[in-house]
């Protein structure tokens, strides 16, 4: 589904990603962990198509296509979804209004008929149950006045509605208390499917107790220095990230 080969990315003068290799197959959940400044968010934003990031080497293939050549909206319509770490507030635009426009843009691209207001309302009423959100919130301006937990749940709601094939969750757990975490993770788990891949980016191991990954990769200083199965998370939990700085750790 997703093939990243030797990806190098610069922001301004600084090289942040220094040769990332990653393969995500269909239905797989990959976790990417790493300390602050390792390049986790950079990776997420480059995959989503944010400007200001300069790709200086390597390639990214999504479903065999050159992802980096696609505009953000083309990626979204092709089924790529990024759940933002800091979802933006957009006064004056309600979640329902914009999500209907987005869904219809995606459906049109897929050759499906657009949903009218009633059909969309029915769909969204179904999906908000997944994230235990109150209907009132989604009629309000997007994320305006939302708590951290509500913003993150709104991201997962959008994921549920837009039905992506590749979901990238950028520190979806940051700023969440245990209850919010459980709801968000529950929503994500309910969306796991054989034809949907996920890349879960996180700083803490805790999230991975709820969203159990198939593979874990550790990002450090712009490179994936270690990959393994889910037990790797526990090792990081007990040893911290400093452990990775030593050459011995990289080799083991």
């Amino acid at each position, binding site marked *: 589904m997703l093939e990243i080969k030797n990806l190098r990315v610069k922001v301004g003068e600084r090289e942040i990603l220094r040769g990332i290799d990653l393969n995500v197959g269909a239905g797989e959940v990959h976790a990417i962990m790493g300390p602050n400044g390792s390049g986790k968010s950079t990776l997420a934003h480059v995959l989503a198509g944010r*400007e200001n990031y300069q790709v200086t080497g390597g390639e990214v293939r999504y479903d065999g296509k050159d992802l980096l050549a696609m505009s*953000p909206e083309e990626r979204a319509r092709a089924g790529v979804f990024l759940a933002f770490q800091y*979802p*933006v507030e957009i006064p*004056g635009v309600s979640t329902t209004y914009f999500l209907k426009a987005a*869904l219809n843009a995606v459906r049109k691209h897929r050759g499906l008929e657009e949903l009218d207001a009633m059909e969309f309302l029915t769909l969204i009423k179904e999906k908000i149950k997944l994230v235990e959100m109150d209907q009132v919130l989604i009629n309000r301006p997007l994320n305006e006045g939302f708590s951290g937990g509500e913003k993150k749940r709104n991201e997962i709601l959008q994921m549920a509605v837009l039905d992506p094939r590749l979901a990238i969750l950028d520190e979806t757990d940051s700023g969440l208390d245990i209850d919010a975490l459980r709801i968000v993770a529950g929503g994500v788990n309910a969306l796991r499917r054989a034809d949907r891949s996920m890349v879960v980016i996180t700083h803490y191991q805790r999230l991975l107790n709820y969203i159990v990954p198939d593979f874990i990769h550790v990002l450090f200083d712009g490179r994936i220095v270690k990959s393994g199965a889910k037990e790797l998370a526990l090792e990081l939990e007990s040893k911290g990230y400093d452990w990775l700085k030593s050459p011995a750790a990289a080799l083991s």
Partner: protein
Amino acid sequence: MEALERMEHYRSLFRESYGAGALPAWFARLRESAIESFTQLGFPAPGSEDWKYTNVDPIAAVPFAHANGEGAALTGEIFASAFVDVACPRLAFVNGAYSERLSSLNGLPAGVRVASLRAALGSNDAALETYLGRAARYREQPFVALNSALMEDGAVVLVPEGCRLPAPVYLVFVSTAEAKPVQSQPRNLLVLGAGSEAKIVESYIGLGTGNYFTNAVTELFAAENAVIDHYRVQREGDRGFHVGALEAHLSNRCSFTAHAITLGGLLVRNDLRVVLDGEGCECVLNGLYLADGDRHVDNHTDIEHARPRTTSFELYKGILSGSARGVFNGKIIVHKDAQKTDARQTNKNLLLSDHAVANSKPQLEIYADDVKCSHGSTIGQLDGDALFYLRSRGLAPDDARSLLSYAFASDVVNRVKIPALRERLDDYLLSRFRRK
């Protein structure tokens, strides 16, 4: 036309308008005084402080004439474009002249007087002599002087003490371009008795593609405890010139909201002055101006806190594209005795193109020492983060820009308290921003 020619042109218009002997003496004297003022003042000079960014030469240079009534063939279909709810009482004017055919006065409570200025002058309504000309500053402001000199018709709304209007009253001013460029000078008088409640909508709409000039003045007087929700919706034609003044005088504990929605016109200047001349008044100014192409829109507001414990809240937002220019000048004067004033002013401008220009100037004069005053102004483009967010969900860049522009404008429209009007304006915004 040269300066002298221009004055002579308007003096002759003055002589032509109204038949001799048809006017009450006080009204004739007021007009005489005004034409003298206008002759002395002349059109505002470029570079004068109040007209710093607005050059009125395009208006001054054209010998606008009296309308001939060519617009008499209009039908009720115009009301939709003018955002008028035809179920509500309305006075309609075509090129400044009252049209009984297009008006409708059903459903007004007893004691409420809604009539054309001509009719009110004809029946010598006492309120007219008491109030007309008392607030309009025709000795200092050229366009107000011009209107006061040439005024013939307009809307008069008199709401008695304690009366609550069950429905909004619409005052519709339709301009149609004629063979020669025409001018109209609507003069409106709104008097609200103590404890009354009213919603009044002035709607200006221009049809056709020719030049014409609307110079409208509204005086509003509110007695104690009156609650007024006033609207001026302006949708003049692509080559229409609109100069409008609203003077509102409020007494103790009045609550006054003035919405100013500017959607059309090639050269537009709005002057809005509110005098909070009573304790405990509240005033809310809610403004939106959209300008594209070569349009120029200038909003000057002036809020005067003259007594203690009054509040004002002002939000004006502009969206400028093409090579349009938007000017905002927000004056707040807090008089010496106006302790415990609370005044907040915000002006936000959204520039959608490289050539659009916004000028924004707050002007605070504070003479009392126990007050809260704040002002803020922004001039900027669409938020890159928001744009990216929407695109990352599948929206095309144009659609994302339209949505954000719509959202910026709907912030003001959402404050419209008349549901039918709010919906119509909302529909307008949706269609305006969809066509890029």
